[in-house]
């Protein structure tokens, strides 16, 4: 059964009644190319795979008998517009119109197992393999046409969705016609040659988002928008604070509330299913629950607690002798940087709809990790994973925050208990309280500078935020980065760029600090130490030039700040112009320039869109976002108590993407995002001479120093 709102044509939500992968390989006609993402192509074994075998591939591409091309890939669409970019890449290699390509993402029955691709770098990992598979399909189709006409392969070419005979362009055959009656399943082995860049017609063009029409008409179906016959609505009892354990719950009165179908209690899980969401909520409120409260984490102890629980996890970029170099340095500069917990705060709260169908359970969940959800649902319900299907509909923002499978497990428990489909969607308060956060971090940096003003030693201790972006792009002769795992008082998880934003903040602010202490220009300082990183050097130079860095003369109260960062394969340099109101300490970011290099640009406008969005999110981290909590209770539970950037604060943006078409496409949004907070902090220093080692750069903190 297929929910209303879920169909392939509107927004790519797969049809639950459609063929599964296994069935598809057995039954489907046409030409299918199987391939592996992120694995060596040779490793997959070569030759033709018999139809029906399902092993060792993570994605596939099919040319149907109707000539339609479908790409199946694991990473869900969460607003990064992966669907359009993959369609562009496949259509390009097959020289077929973009409209003839469909992309199915995030359906555990129809896409292969998730190789753990994260959204920010999906285009680099999946993109290349999709191109190669499409190139392989092109070769297969060309060979079939050549054989049919009795000519060598070199005499045929693909054009506008057909194979054409070069010597006589009137002789042509559609891809669908070639695929008709075929049951050809080919495993990609040696990569077929990719189309030369000079012949690109679609890649590098700003094709509009395939999902766009569904978004602007309200037809895009997010998990909470799906409707099934006899759909009921769930609500789950949540603890009063983190780590609390349920002692007992009096549910008798809830069960008799109007519209209540059932109160479900399984161990310490308590949920209500009702005919309407508001009735479920009302009934839930009438449950008298007794809790044993857990450890009462409070913010005041955050950074102290991280340090106290630190265990060395890894050492990175170790070079030379840091201790000796620090001891012998002419100048030493140390500082400790702090970044707080941040919330993903997607506008769409977590939601899942579960429906038991025979001995199977189908869960529609707004998640980035459908395979994790499948596994968790199967384990919680004591089913085999093969009996659970997770389908990802449209997702209203994720940012790394829609990983944990709790919502799917809860919906599945309720659906199984009542024997009808159940939709579970979190309230804003639940969304902000019961999901993961971006790790808070403490980063200690010590550096030693020689008499000539060279940074000879760089020693960083990174607490709790992990290693992403922790190794500097600069070449310091003596260097050591130690990454420590800590006990986090709040549940934490992925967040755009992971630790990259905290690590970039510490590094880029510290570099600015050293430059100002030495009386050196911050851009010159960066360029001098970017010895081996040519890509970063290129974006830094281009940004300084574009901005007119050397000639800048900011008036009093205004400042400009510079920072650079690499993430998800991209390099970005950011210049921020700020205005600081001395009386209030209020920082206003007036303009942000981003110069970025992301390899081959598949869709320039989409890349700009992603960068722009990353900048806005980076501004939130720079100026306002910090999750507050006391006594194990999250206090940032609404947009009023956790304000995110609004259109009012959105600065003028200039995005420059440097061409690098010979390197593979790279992730879009996060490199610039990571550089925004340090650029703003450096600009605030430029404006008022005050440097804060901590975000957010809140007025109360800045005022304290004026």
């Amino acid at each position, binding site marked *: 059964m297929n929910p209303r709102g879920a169909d392939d044509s509107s927004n790519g939500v797969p049809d639950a009644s459609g063929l599964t992968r296994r069935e598809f390989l057995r039954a489907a006609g046409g030409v299918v190319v199987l391939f592996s993402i992120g694995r060596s192509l040779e490793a997959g074994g070569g030759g033709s795979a018999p139809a029906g075998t399902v092993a060792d591939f993570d994605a596939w591409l099919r040319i149907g008998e109707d000539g339609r091309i479908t790409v199946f890939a694991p990473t869900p669409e969460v607003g990064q517009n992966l669907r359009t970019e993959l369609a562009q890449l496949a259509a390009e290699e097959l020289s077929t119109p973009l409209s003839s390509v469909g992309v199915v993402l995030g359906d555990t029955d129809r896409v292969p197992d998730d190789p753990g691709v994260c959204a920010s770098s999906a285009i680099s990992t999946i993109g290349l393999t999709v191109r190669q598979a499409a190139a392989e399909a092109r070769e297969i189709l060309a060979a079939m046409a050549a054989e049919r006409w009795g000519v060598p392969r070199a005499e045929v070419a693909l054009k506008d969705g057909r194979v054409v005979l070069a010597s006589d362009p009137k002789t042509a055959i559609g891809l669908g016609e070639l695929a008709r009656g075929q049951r050809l399943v080919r495993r990609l082995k040696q990569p077929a040659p990719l189309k030369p860049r000079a012949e690109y017609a679609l890649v590098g063009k700003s094709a509009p988002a395939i999902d766009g029409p569904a978004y602007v008409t309200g037809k895009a179906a997010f998990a909470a*928008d799906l409707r099934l016959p006899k759909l009921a609505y769930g609500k789950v009892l949540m603890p009063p604070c983190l780590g609390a354990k349920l002692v007992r719950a009096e549910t008798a009165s809830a069960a008799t509330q109007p519209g209540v179908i059932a109160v479900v209690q399984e161990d310490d899980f308590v949920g209500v299913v009702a005919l309407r969401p508001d009735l479920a909520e009302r009934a839930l409120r009438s449950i008298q629950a007794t809790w044993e409260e857990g450890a009462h984490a409070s913010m005041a102890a955050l950074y102290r607690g991280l340090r106290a629980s630190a265990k060395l996890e890894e050492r990175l970029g170790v070079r030379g002798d840091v201790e000796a170099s620090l001891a012998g340095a002419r100048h030493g500069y140390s500082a400790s940087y702090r970044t707080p917990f941040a919330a993903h705060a997607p506008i769409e709260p977590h939601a899942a709809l579960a429906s038991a169908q025979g001995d199977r359970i189908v869960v529609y969940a707004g998640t980035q990790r459908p395979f994790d959800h499948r596994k968790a649902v199967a384990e919680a319900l004591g089913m085999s994973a093969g009996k659970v299907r997770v389908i990802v509909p449209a997702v209203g923002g994720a940012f790394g925050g829609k990983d944990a499978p709790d919502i799917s497990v809860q919906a599945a428990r309720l659906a199984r208990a009542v024997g009808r489909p159940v939709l579970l969607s979190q309230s804003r308060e639940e969304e902000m309280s019961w999901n993961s956060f971006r790790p808070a971090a403490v980063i200690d940096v010590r550096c030693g500078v020689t008499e000539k003003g060279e940074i000879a030693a760089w020693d960083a201790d990174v607490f709790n935020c992990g290693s992403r972006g922790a190794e500097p792009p600069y070449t310091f002769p003596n260097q050591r980065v130690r990454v420590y795992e800590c006990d986090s008082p709040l549940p934490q998880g992925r967040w755009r760029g992971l630790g990259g934003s905290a690590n970039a903040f510490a590094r880029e602010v510290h570099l600015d600090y050293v430059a100002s202490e030495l009386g050196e220009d911050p851009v010159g300082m960066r360029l001098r130490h970017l010895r081996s990183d040519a890509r970063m050097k290129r974006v830094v130079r281009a940004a300084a030039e574009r901005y007119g860095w050397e000639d800048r003369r900011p008036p009093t109260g205004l400042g400009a700040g510079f920072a650079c960062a690499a993430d998800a394969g991209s390099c970005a340099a950011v210049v921020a112009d700020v205005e600081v109101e001395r009386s209030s300490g209020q920082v206003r970011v007036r303009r942000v320039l981003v110069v970025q290099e992301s390899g081959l640009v598949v869709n320039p406008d989409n890349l700009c869109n992603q960068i722009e969005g990353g900048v806005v999110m980076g501004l939130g981290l720079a100026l306002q976002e910090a999750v507050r909590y006391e006594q194990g209770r999250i206090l940032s539970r609404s947009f009023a108590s956790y304000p995110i950037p609004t259109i009012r604060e*959105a600065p003028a*943006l200039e995005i420059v993407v440097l061409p690098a078409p010979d390197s593979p496409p790279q992730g879009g949004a996060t490199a610039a995002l990571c550089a925004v907070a340090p650029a703003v902090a450096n600009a605030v220093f430029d404006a008022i001479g005050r440097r804060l080692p901590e975000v957010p750069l809140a007025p109360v903190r800045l005022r304290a120093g004026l």
Partner: protein
Amino acid sequence: MAETARPIVIRVNGTEHSLGAERSRSLLSVLRTELGLTGTKYGCGSGECGACTVLLDGQPVRACTTPVSHADGRSVTTIEGLEGKDGSLHPVQQAFLDVQAFQCGYCTPGMIMEAVALLRKDPNPTALTIREKMAGHLCRCGTYSRIVRAIQAAAAKMRK
């Protein structure tokens, strides 16, 4: 009691609906669960994000904090009611599409409804006015500069 038993009558996108819903229920809940109009989104439930914006007699309101009784006898337009009879997009929808003023698309219906109301009142808004009027609408993907551009583009088209 007789008073509360009287059905609520609302005209939604031109169609009249007689509802037995409790008067205190939110308009958003009624639109989404009773009428199946899921283009209007829940984002916060307290009027802070704008995702649930609909037009009530042409005025933008937050459906999540509007009791359905408030819409009794009145006319509601949701995102589903913006397209022309021939399926053509409203100029604001078209402009959001042309400018690609979205990423995940979740806040988009609310943004578009507010922009439609704004342009009815002020056919030629400055960028500053747009920012002021749209300030109650959150886009976590951060597509704000595009939203300003889209509304300006729609305004230019509608003035023609």
